[in-house]
């Protein structure tokens, strides 16, 4: 394929208006002969001045016909999808370990991501099921996928717990305790 010139526009370009003084050119023109563009360098490229017909492509077109024999490949692919969340768990554990229990912006972001991803996946369960439709072990895969995501969110919750973000202690509810009502009215003091 002839490469477009360094200084020129594109190969088959729309030429714009040039200098003001020059003769008025066409607003646009289609140069059908791609090889015969103005670039002189192209002409002297030494690649041969082959002119391709319109619509000709040098790339080979892939074979799109489905091979019936690769059924187990689909299975494999579906298992990949189903096992995806489970595979992430060791990674998550590592991140959890690395980020520590201090409350700062990065651990919080990590936890949010960890918690959000399984939830997102669970919400788009039906789409995943559609992906797995073609598989024979659809239900098993679905279950594995679900379990994986649940484990992921459990991990996120555990992380929240260890970071102290879950209101599981009595101190977390302290601010909501109303001051008790006093029953007796009392006053007095030193004899004036």
């Amino acid at each position, binding site marked *: 394929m002839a490469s477009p010139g360094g200084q020129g526009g594109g190969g088959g370009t*729309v030429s*714009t208006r040039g200098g003001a003084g020059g003769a008025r050119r066409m607003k646009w023109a289609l140069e059908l002969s791609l090889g015969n563009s103005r670039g002189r360098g192209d002409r002297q490229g030494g690649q041969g001045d082959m002119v391709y017909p319109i619509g000709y492509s040098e790339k080979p077109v892939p074979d799109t016909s489905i091979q019936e024999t690769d059924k187990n490949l689909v299975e494999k692919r579906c298992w990949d999808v189903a096992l995806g969340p489970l595979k992430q768990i060791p990674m998550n554990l590592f991140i959890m370990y690395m980020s520590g229990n201090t409350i700062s912006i990065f651990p919080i972001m990590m936890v949010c991501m960890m918690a959000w991803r399984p939830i997102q996946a669970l919400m788009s369960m039906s789409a995943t099921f559609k992906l797995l439709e073609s598989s024979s072990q659809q239900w098993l895969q679905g279950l594995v996928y679900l379990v994986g995501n649940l484990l992921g969110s459990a991990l996120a919750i555990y992380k929240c717990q260890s970071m*102290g973000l879950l209101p599981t*202690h*009595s*101190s*977390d509810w*302290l*601010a909501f*305790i*109303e*001051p*008790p*009502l*006093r*029953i*007796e*009215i*009392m*006053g*007095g*003091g*030193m*004899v*004036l």
Partner: protein
Amino acid sequence: MANLTIICVNFLVLYSCVAAVFEDQVGKFDWRQQYVGKVRFAHFDMQMQASKKVILATEKNVFASINTRTGELYWRHVDMVGPEGNIDALLMHGQDAVLVGGDGRLLRSWDVNIGGLNWEIVLDHGSFQSTCFVGQHDTVKYVAVLKKAAISVHYLSNGHQKWIENLPESDTVQYQSVYSGGDAEVYALGVVPHSHLAIVAYSVDDGEITKQVSVEAPWLSNIQASCAMVDQGVLMCADTTTSSLYMLDVRTQSQMTQIPLQSLGLDIAPDFKPVLVSTQPNPARPPNSEFFLQLGPDHHLLLKLNDGEIVTLRDFKPALLVSFAAAGEKTIAAVMTPKNLTACSVNLFSADSGRRLLDTTLIFNTDPNGGKPEKLYVQAFLKKDDSVGYRAMVQTEDHTLTFVQQPGRVVWTREEALSDVVTMEMVDLPLTGAQAELEGEFGKKADGLLSMVLKRLSSQLILLQSWIGHLWKLFYDARKPRSQVKNEVSIENLSRDEFNLQKMMVMVTASGKLFGIDSKTGTIVWKHYLDSVPSNAAFMLMVQRTTAHFPHPPQCTLLIKDKDTGLATLHVFNPIFGKKSHITPPTLPQPILQSLMLPLIDQDYAKVLLLVDDQYKVSAFPSTKNVLQQLQEMSTSIFFYLVDNSQGRLSGYRLRTDLSTELIWEVFMPAEVQKVVTVKGKRPNEHVHSQGRVMGDRSVLYKYLNPNLLAVVTESTDMHPERSFVGILLIDGVTGRIIHEAVQRKTRGPVHLVHSENWVVYEYWSTKSRRNEFSVIELYEGMELYNSTVFSSLDRPHLPQVLQQSYIFPSSISTLEATLTEKGITSRHLLIGLPSGAILSLPKMFLDPRRPEIISDQSREENLIPYAPEMPIRTEWFINYNQTVARVRGIFTAPSGLESTCLVVAYGLDIYQTRVYPSKQFDVLKDDYDYMLISSVLFALFFATMISKRLAEVKLLNRAWR
């Protein structure tokens, strides 16, 4: 390593609570007013014609100089409290002021221009009687001091003693007065009451007795009260019983000449002791021969001694006050006469002729809310045309000093009563008319949709109108130079500000004068003098109705109890305007022991005040039917306690339905061993937001928040350092149950105490270690609440856990108070008034009995500071930077509308008002918030967005064309 962590933790903690003021914040929200107290001696600085000073010595042991043009202090020296610093006499000569202080212990000379000490001499023991300048040959060289048994003469230039002589027969003769007429002799005058007068003359040069006479005077008992020196050493005395004047030339005569007043055509007003006033303009010369004789409360005479004959120059009746003044070489007499009910006039008279000087009338308008004139000080001067001009300083009964100029212009007034504030309250200011309109809308009952809509619209319109008015005013003021824009505070424009930071300070002073002071500027908005207040009265100020109940005016009640008779009176007034309320308070025929403010309100939203009399019967104020009914319903839950510290008896009572009482508990402290010093409950307006404390393991330690808890402090009567002790008793005021008891051995008072939330902090002197110590007690219920909904003292089976810790404090303290905020979310600080005049804001977390000795992870989690026995004083914790409050006696704290902010008023000799932010200003933008920068950045960003959006559009279009 552990040390390092401690240092780190300390660093973090300390630097998180630094609360100093920036230089440009000085005076922004704080102010100080300095006072001197009731004036005892006042002298005008006469050495220069254009002098602007008046030198004052006061009953508060303050010696000060005041600018007569502005009324501000030039300088002030505050001496010790009590008799040790008492100023006995003040003499002025040129630019030297000679002061005798501490009952004749010290003789000091001050330079009045700069207020510097020239010299100071410690005098010999003996109670001080009198002092005078001694002059010779027209120059004043010495000062003579007469004591009970000795007379001494000192050089005026350096204070050295020239001579000292014992007075003859000083065990029988009471020497009371010393006199020098400019000749070579000093006379000591003494009296043997109802017998004779003793006159001893000393030679100035060597102190030898040159003459000693005893004169028969059986009617005389006090020389200073009834006698005066006039002319060339003539002792003039007035006597009531014989109703005559006595005359004696101390130099030559030995027999008194009696001149019956009737022979002069005069008589004394009944029950009046005549008073003689003479003048000695130059101490090196004999006194003038003219003198005043006061024969009645409003009857004065100007008399003259002319060759042994008494001549009446002029009779002043009515005349309230008289005074001599010197103008150049002339001596003039100023006389104040009542003009009408609200004004007095002052006139000048020539002293030697008694003629009235022309154009010397001055009108002094007496304040209807002030006291009567008490003393008149006149500063006279010669004008260019040789006529006499003058200014007058009038002291009134309410300790006010007013400086008046001819023809009656008040140059300044000083409310010296404010140097002795007894109690105070802070009252919210009322809403403006528009705001009140809006508030009132919600208060009323709904009457139809349309009318409500109309009402809402109209009130919104009013708001809009006032807002536009406000904007206009801002715009109008912005054009004026800044110095001219003054925020004048008057009753008309008093209204609550956005965050309720401006309040009305109602102050009660010992003299019986009430003040309403605007807390933002310190302007005195109103004053009211109660003239029937006894000198040893006990005051209790209560806010019965705040400004929150709009059509009803706010209402304060002052209980004034005469400690001698026990009888009390109530003064009901409006705290915003100071006007006496039209509500007639009940007359209280029985002595009142205590009063008690109930949270009950009557139909007019006034809180009910219960007064307990000595029969333990209770009367209510207001006592309408509604109130009495409510009281009957509530009576089973109303309790009160009384502490009688003379008997050491603490007793609790319960109210019966018929308003009689029933004794339910009694605790005796043996009065011969210990005496009750202080009893403190919690402040009724205190809110506690958090019911517990979060531990390191995130469990909760619940606070023991007993609203009926009392902290009782006792001191031992035995003051021996080995045996003295301070006891603290936490007792439930309803049941009398003793919650906690602690005794600190080898300590003594004075004990300062703060009781708040679940803690008690107190300070005492440890005689063992000779240092001041703080101790803190905190009470906790434990890890579980017994009853989280209601608190009843009658149903609390478990005693709380008590934690206590003590610390060393490097200074003694004058007063102690805790900050207070609206909801109690903000952390607490202790405000400590130090004797130096500084007010220290100490974070409560330094006084926390849970401070660990060994730090652990849990304590670090809780942000507990490791225990250190010494308490730091950091100068950046002084909330009043260099504005020291002399003799700080009390600190008052009040919450503002902002949770972060607490209003603080410290009072003593001075008054200082400021705001503190114990947890910093978390709810408002900082003072130095850069509005300009932020808004310019915002605008720049906005425009940048607009421009780049446009540019992007163009670019997109271009790309589409390409």
